[in-house]
């Protein structure tokens, strides 16, 4: 016995050692599989495929060269779908619309959601309004509002104060508006509504104010410079865009905010002066109006009103259907008019007695002694009714 035990111990130790070695080997092999490529465009890690692995995933190493499906797109198809427009105006369609035309259309189709004159207040995005004044660095002053220390208005993100380019306004209205009937406006109408919204934001084009008679077209829309055009970073334009984006994400501590792995006696100052020690902040006013309402019980859902399944049918399903669904078991099948016609020749009273006391191969009450006589009557009525 002693020898056997020793043998078991040896096997156990070998197994333990080999699994430890295997784990160690797996760990040391990990870097070659999880090879990182720093400096990806988001500053993050990408995982190249190599040696049959894509991180933890296996993949088929066979070449996919020559795999090609689909058919060439026709020139007309591309023309039909390629209707986007760039900030420089490339892609904008011909057409024109006046502020006055836009006013009529806006009142009829847009004001219900976006408010009179684009002023919001209906729960949907506010399109016009807000102070566009800039500070000495060219930053829209009201966008610096922070609702955290003292009373401050929210920064307004309207076309006039926040949007960087006006071409987006045209394409978005054309493709996605009016909300319930997208793509129902003509290009002229879209130019008109675009003109109206720009006018409400007191935009000038080439130094010209947009009065009711002002007619907007492609050439004029291209010239619009919005107040917050330079209010966004990192740079995404020009030949250096990708490098600028990469540099931005490479320094997330400075640009986005990053943590530190302090483990003991950590300090976390902040606040307006950057020196106030962090304290506990509880919910002031809890948002509770959620749909459907919060509920956590593990119970049966409430019966739907006017449910299609009657009480009799449920009892039938539970206690009778097993034998009466077909005639395979010798019982008259529900739905078989002829079979039930001959059953009913005995008279309802006799049928009920048979159901309650059993008959032939059928046990009393179909075997469910929890059913009372009234239940049985309901069930039989249901079965007879469903078999006419």
């Amino acid at each position, binding site marked *: 016995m002693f020898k056997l035990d020793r043998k078991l111990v040896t096997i156990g130790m070998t197994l333990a050692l080999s699994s430890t070695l295997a784990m160690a080997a797996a760990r040391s092999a990990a870097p070659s599989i999880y090879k990182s490529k720093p400096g990806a465009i*988001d*500053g*993050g*890690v990408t*995982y190249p495929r190599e040696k049959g692995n894509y*991180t933890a995933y296996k993949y088929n190493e066979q070449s*996919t060269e020559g*795999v*090609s499906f689909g058919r060439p*797109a026709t020139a007309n198809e591309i023309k039909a779908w*390629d209707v*986007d427009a*760039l900030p420089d105006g490339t892609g904008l369609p011909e057409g024109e619309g006046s502020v006055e035309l836009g006013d009529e259309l806006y009142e009829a189709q847009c004001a219900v*959601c976006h408010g009179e004159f684009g002023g919001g207040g209906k*729960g949907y*995005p506010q399109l016009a309004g807000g102070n566009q004044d800039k500070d000495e660095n060219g*930053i*829209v002053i009201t*966008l610096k*509002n*922070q609702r955290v220390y003292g009373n401050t208005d929210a*920064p307004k*993100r309207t076309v006039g104060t*926040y949007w960087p*380019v006006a071409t*987006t306004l045209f*394409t*978005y209205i054309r493709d*996605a508006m009016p*909300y319930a009937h997208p793509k129902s406006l003509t290009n002229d109408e879209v130019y008109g509504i675009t003109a109206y919204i720009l006018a409400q934001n007191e935009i000038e084009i080439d130094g010209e104010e947009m009065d009711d008679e002002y007619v907007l077209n492609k050439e004029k829309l291209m010239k619009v410079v919005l107040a917050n055009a330079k209010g*966004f*970073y*990192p740079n*995404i334009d020009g030949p250096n865009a990708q490098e600028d984006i990469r540099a931005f994400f490479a320094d997330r501590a400075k*640009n*986005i*905010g*990053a943590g*530190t792995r302090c*483990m003991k*006696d*950590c300090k976390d*100052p*902040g606040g307006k002066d950057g020196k106030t*020690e962090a304290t*506990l*902040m*509880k*919910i002031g*006013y*809890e*948002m509770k*109006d*959620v*749909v459907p309402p919060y509920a*956590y019980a*593990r*119970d*049966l859902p409430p019966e739907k009103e006017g449910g299609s399944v009657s009480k009799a049918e449920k009892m039938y399903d*539970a206690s009778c259907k097993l034998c009466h669904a077909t005639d395979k078991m010798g019982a008259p099948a529900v739905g078989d008019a002829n079979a039930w016609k001959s059953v009913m020749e005995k008279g309802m009273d006799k049928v009920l007695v048979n159901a309650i006391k059993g008959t032939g191969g059928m046990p009393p009450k179909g075997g469910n002694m929890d059913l009372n006589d009234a239940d049985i009557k309901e069930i039989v009525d249901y079965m007879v009714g469903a078999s006419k």
Partner: protein
Amino acid sequence: MSCVDTKYKGEKLNRETEEKLTSSGRRDFFKKTASVSAVAATSIMVPSTVLADDENIMHHVKWGTTLGDECNKNPYGVPSLYEHNVVRRTSALMSSAGDMHAAISMTPLHEQKGIITPNGLHFTRTHNGVAHVDPEKFRLMIHGLVEKPIVLTLEQLKRYPSESRILVLECPSNSAAEWKGPQFGTLQFVKGMMSCAEWTGVRLKTILDELGLKPEAKWMLAEGSDGSEMSRTVPIEKVLDDAMIVWGQNGEALRAEQGYPVRLMLPGWEANLSVKWLKRLEFGDKPWYAKEETSKYTALTASGKAIQHFYANEVNSIITSPCPEIPWTDLEKGDLVEIEGLAWSGHGTIDGVDISFDGGKNWVEANLKGLVLPKAWTRFSYMYKYEGKPLLLQSRSYDDSKNVQPTVNQEKAVVGVEGVYHRNAICTWAVSDMGEVSNVQIRS
């Protein structure tokens, strides 16, 4: 009443009554659901402890004494009827004027098991309602700065070799209500704008290899076919790295809410970029400035300027147990209990998670468990001895790009409180001495 119910909020234990019932006070569910019969009291009584017999054991149960449903009653299966409260929820705050066509619904993270979100519980964001694309009429056009512009039907697209990846999708607005302070009292609404699924489709590079991408192509416009024509501009580097066009979600076709039949999938990047109901991919040399990357999905900072084109979801984590929905009110002092949570990073793989019990002053290392995959939810776990003392529970994750999840103060110092999007600050659960859990913040 089932024993499980006692775990939930709103059903606090009446400890005083229970202490009278038994001096040991352990395992309340036996007591709560049991009736003390005279026989039980005399036959099982041991000094100082009375355990009542559980009716669920002493009597036959309904489902054991009746015939169950037919085997294939539901040809497409549904969850147990008893799970009917495990559902996505939304709020008027996440819509325009309560209109639920441009809105968002939240995944019930407190009921999330493992790392795969069931398709019926995947969070949903729509800008013009859920589109129902006819797969026979679906067309995908790929054009612009390519030698061979093409049109694909759904069947043709699915002919391409496929691969499957488990990936988290997180809305850029996740936790948007929390910038100025805690507002929602549940895990579902604090962090529910995210889900994780296995997505199946073709790598975009495999298709593009044959189309002759021109060297001046720097950007890709991805456009949806729904009423909002949701579109985004994607840098070419990401397109050629790991971007996919997917048609499979957890083993079946995409749900309509997730872009049926086809959506773009940009692993690790904010979900708004993974355009649903995909219709068109155009390659160009300039970015398009679509609405959802200018007036929306840009983060206004305290400087008055806004961050645009933020891409990857930052390193993040949340404790899912305990949480406000599943508190520790059923625990007794001395109980050993698991603290569990989810960590994820759009930059890569989670390297580890730390846990604090005192609101971030001191930290211990938690353990990762299960699959640890890049750009996917990763589970973390820590065994904790419950002492019935108030706690300020936090989790802090870090990834293989050396990113560490920031505190509220650390994030606020850089971006302020009006950013709306891209929030990844550490969350705090306050645990009361009774085990109740509430959403709080530690900040200046």
